[in-house]
């Protein structure tokens, strides 16, 4: 949002009645402008890309690409857009998935509409918004994920530079031949490197190794491999 400009909102919910209610309430405020509406996830992402809203409010249960997946896609495609996910009732699983997908806030539809407006203003200021009663569980999850990532990074330090390159290529779906081609080594050497990587990481397959990288978000930590 530019200085003095209204906060531009994308509203996505399958139910037109809910969208209408929220739009009416937001439009009555001086600082809100509902720039787009969507009734499913795909439309929400498309509208976000088209209108570049400041805040996207998404129902978790959107049809055709749910609100969690739509959150992830919007955050990737419109980085400045902050996303609030809401669901029918407070649901810890949805909260965790939403925050991991990149949402900045989570609300249940049981909350007053005034809370939704306050949430939109808050996330736009850069704050995270979580129902207080759910904060502890969320922090536990955040800490757990950090520990997993630290552990993954620790295991990665056992890899040689070449093995890191191999792991990065594995994570990108390369087979032995492609790894060999990219690293200018023989397929047999590539296979040896792959076996060493699997052994050092304590995983049993290429797929598991790729998942190890993806789940821990460590692709960028691997040495530069031209993608």
């Amino acid at each position, binding site marked *: 949002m530019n200085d003095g400009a209204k906060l531009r909102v994308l509203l996505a919910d399958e139910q037109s009645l809910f969208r209408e209610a929220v739009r009416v309430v937001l439009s009555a405020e001086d600082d809100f402008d509902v720039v787009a509406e969507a009734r499913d996830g795909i439309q929400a992402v498309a509208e976000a890309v088209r209108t570049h809203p400041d805040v996207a409010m998404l129902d978790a249960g959107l049809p055709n690409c749910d609100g969690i997946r739509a959150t992830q896609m919007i955050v990737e495609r419109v980085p400045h857009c902050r996303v609030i996910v809401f669901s029918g009732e407070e649901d810890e699983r949805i909260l965790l998935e939403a*925050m991991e997908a990149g949402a900045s806030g989570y609300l249940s539809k049981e909350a007053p509409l005034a809370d939704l407006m306050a949430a939109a203003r808050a996330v736009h200021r*850069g*704050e*995270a918004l*979580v129902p*207080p*009663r759910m*904060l*502890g*569980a*969320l*922090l*536990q999850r*955040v*800490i757990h994920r*950090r*520990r997993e990532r630290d552990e993954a990074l620790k295991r990665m330090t056992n890899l040689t530079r070449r093995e890191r390159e191999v792991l990065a290529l594995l994570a990108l779906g390369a087979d032995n031949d492609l790894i060999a081609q990219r690293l200018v080594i023989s397929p047999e050497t590539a296979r040896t490197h792959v076996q060493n990587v699997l052994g050092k990481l304590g995983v049993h397959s290429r797929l598991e190794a790729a998942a190890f990288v993806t789940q821990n978000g460590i692709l960028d930590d691997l040495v530069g491999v031209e993608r």
Partner: protein
Amino acid sequence: MSVSTRRPIRKQEVWLRQAEDENVVYDPETGSVHILNATAVAIWVLCDGETEPLEMVDAICGLTGLPHEVVSEDVYGILDEFDRAGILGWTK
């Protein structure tokens, strides 16, 4: 002993009751009742004997974007209050 090298753990017998707008910790041993705000409840939940205070601070900073020193002061302040109320133990 530095607080940051130890891990806080809730006293087993103390229980937390969360109502609509009120969070109460009750210690049946002493009969004491403590009313907690939302942040204090979150910290209380994290006092599992495995989580270091610094991990709590880092997680809250990561989630909220608040400055480390501000969060650190809050977290250690709350833990100190729990400690003084006698509802917390520490593990190494």
